[in-house]
């Protein structure tokens, strides 16, 4: 922790080596986060770049209320959502009723499946429900929070998540 504190202080002093160390410490994990919200690696790296510039610009606002990793991840997710919103992926998102009652249909385990395979499955989701799935299933946000973040209704968030889950289940069933 002391090393992290020193690293933060050095980054605040615009120490380029310290900034590079901080980037190297979190870039790998954050690139996975970016990849879950985007369609390809190039787009993910664009989001990662933009996110880390914002991280270094706003590092003085980090109060230590949460871990530095959680703070960095929150910024990366916000940048990713803004990136998706700029591409208007959320336009036309509406309730999808046909997936509402498919939660109990043949749940398939994902244990033993490499995360990159799971990542490819997430990337194949429709653009709208991809973000909802990431935010609800992996990031752990509530549908009300997701509705506010994506500027959609809570019902739309729920139905889009149900749709994403049903699609993933069907893919896992086929693969297994």
């Amino acid at each position: 922790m002391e090393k992290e504190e020193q690293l933060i202080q050095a980054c605040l002093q615009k120490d380029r080596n310290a900034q590079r160390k901080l980037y190297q410490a979190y870039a790998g994990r954050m690139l996975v986060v970016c990849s879950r919200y985007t369609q390809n690696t190039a787009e993910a790296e664009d989001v990662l770049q933009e996110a880390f510039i914002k991280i270094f610009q706003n590092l003085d606002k980090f109060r230590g209320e949460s871990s530095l990793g959680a703070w960095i991840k929150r910024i990366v997710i916000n940048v990713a959502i803004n990136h998706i919103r700029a591409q208007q992926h959320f336009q036309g998102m509406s309730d999808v009723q046909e997936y509402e009652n498919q939660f109990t249909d043949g749940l398939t385990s994902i244990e033993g499946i490499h995360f990159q395979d799971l990542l490819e499955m997430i990337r194949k989701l429709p653009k709208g429900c991809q973000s909802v799935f990431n935010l609800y299933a992996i990031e752990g946000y509530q549908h009300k929070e997701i509705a506010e973040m994506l500027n959609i209704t809570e019902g739309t968030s729920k139905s889009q998540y149900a749709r994403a889950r049903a699609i993933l289940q069907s893919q896992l069933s086929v693969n297994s």
Partner: protein
Amino acid sequence: MMNDFTNNSFEEQWQKAFDDASLTPSDSVWEKIEQGLSIEETPLPQSPKNTFPWSYFGAVLAVLLGVGSWLFIQETQLQAEEPVEIQEKQVIKMPESTHSTSVIAQKENVRKPLNLPTKANLAVPQKEEVPEEQPNVLPEEIEPERIKLADSISTLSPLPVKKLTGSFQTPPVEIQTETTPYYEPTKPKPKKNSILKNVKISVGIGTYQH
């Protein structure tokens, strides 16, 4: 298949699968970040151009405007008071150009209408006979030259001409004081209101005039 979810929910499995997941970004990402940070940091040396102390400049300007306007107002007020003093001086200098006695004579001439008979006095001669009005007869008996001289002198002064020259050289300045009955104190003209008199200046530390 359901047994796989006995311990972990669907969401927990996905969270666990991505917990320690990591991908190596390409080197170009850091280079772009470094460029972006350099662009953000380079405007800082240029900022001194924009950090000209406008606040101090504005404060100094406000003080200068305040002092300048105050001086201007004072000057305009003094200019408005000056014409009154000049007229008073003209009145004092008047005896130097004209004889003091002539002034008295003029004053008497001016006051003659005050000695005119009132309506009661006028009523009595009307009742009396007309031949008693000698002023109409007297001019015929006096020589024309003497009348002219008397008229000319009476217009200047009732005193002899020889005495006029003596008194002309030493004009009594005290006559023009307020104690003399012929001194009419010049009424001080109302001060001209300057244009900026009612201007309320509310710039910074400037004067505030009602």
